[in-house]
């Protein structure tokens, strides 16, 4: 059976979720692989959310927020932009490929951009294969 990536999308309510909605309303075709979780702001996304998603069987995690300067709460996306690089540096040590976790900015008017990010990420993860979290040895 061919591998269908499972991606958890964590989208901020004010821009990115609306952007995803626009992609749908405009009948854009895009990969159905992202399961969307709506949060109020990308600043709400704790690193533990990303880890929890990976631990629970996600092959990738996509975090989307408003463009810098546009966050509904002024600074939340800057916070996300500080956490994500540090989290990714830590994940690299843990053997998690860089492409599995991604932070992007999508505004409410960027339905196209949402669709292309989702397509692109789905393809990348399809190439990487499933995220099996194990130690590569015989006894766990």
């Amino acid at each position, binding site marked *: 059976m061919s591998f269908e990536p499972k991606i958890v999308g964590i989208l901020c309510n004010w821009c990115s979720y609306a952007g995803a909605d626009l992609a749908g309303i405009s009948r854009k075709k895009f990969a159905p692989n992202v399961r969307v979780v709506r949060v109020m702001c990308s600043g709400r996304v704790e690193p533990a959310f990303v880890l929890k998603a990976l631990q629970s069987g996600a092959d990738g995690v996509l975090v989307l927020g408003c463009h810098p300067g546009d966050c509904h709460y002024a600074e939340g996306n800057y916070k996300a932009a500080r*956490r994500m*690089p540090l989290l990714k540096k830590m994940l690299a040590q*843990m*053997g998690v490929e860089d492409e599995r976790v991604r932070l992007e900015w999508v505004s409410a008017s960027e339905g196209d951009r949402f669709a292309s990010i989702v397509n692109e990420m789905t393809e990348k993860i399809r190439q990487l294969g499933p995220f099996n979290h*194990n*130690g590569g040895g015989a*006894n766990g």
Partner: protein
Amino acid sequence: MAKLKVALYWAASCGGCEIGQLQIGEKILKLVEVADIVFWPVAIDVKYKDVEAMPSKSIDVCLFNGGIRNSEQEHIAKMLREKSKVMIAYGACAYGGGIPGLANLFNKQTIFDRVYLETPSTLNNDHTVPQPKTKVPEGELNIPEFYDSVKTLRQTIDVDYVIPGCPPEERTTWLALEALISGKLPPKGTVITHNAKAVCDDCSRKRDVKKVKKFYRTFEMIPEPEICLLEQGLLCAGITTRGGCGAPCPQANMPCTGCYGPVAGVIDQGAHFLSAVASVIDSNNPEEVRKIIDDIRDPVGTFYRYSLPDSLLGRARIK
């Protein structure tokens, strides 16, 4: 009243927990008034077969320190669970995996290659590495099987209480022993400390605005004695770590490294610590953020110093 029967054991640990137990000093006399120690490999000569012969649930309390990294430790943990009414994970290794738990960045193969073949001072032309079974003329020799991952005690057996710390502070050990002696035990699952809030709650340093432009390693600076260490750019885990220790490290100008495990309610201590550290970075510029993060050389070793096996991912992925 019959005396309590107490067992103490060490698994993947360093021996520091035994020192921690002895730190109770003369209070140990109070302990032996009410308790008999029936098993304690570091101090008394009782064999595994003696423990095996003990009836089920005949030990009142077992203080178990160390993580589970090989088959012997797993076997003894299961045996002691069966023999003991109350099982306590004693110390950071039993609780979260501890320092030995950082070996979860590797697996059996990569550890054996490094230790037995690659280290610069090793000469091992025959590539001899430990085998669980070896045939010799006299018969078969067995040693415990080394696992790929270190596991916590709770991942191995049912645990009733946790006494955290690396090693547990004397006051924490005594708090638990007093509860045991008096029979006033907290609800099952309790992490026994004087303070369920963060180490910061125990710490006397002044806290103000946390905005950090540069992180330092401890040898790179001498911190100002009265201000929060994190505010000065030291990676202090106090904010994510359960208190009750009395904050001895920050008082000695050293950042907390997190040995008491996560504060109540946090499931992944490292992720919580990472989140807090990233949040105090004083920059909105991606390039500058990257430069500041560069100073954090070893995120896993910093954020999961004592808790990698207990973290959400548990170990590194190795292909």
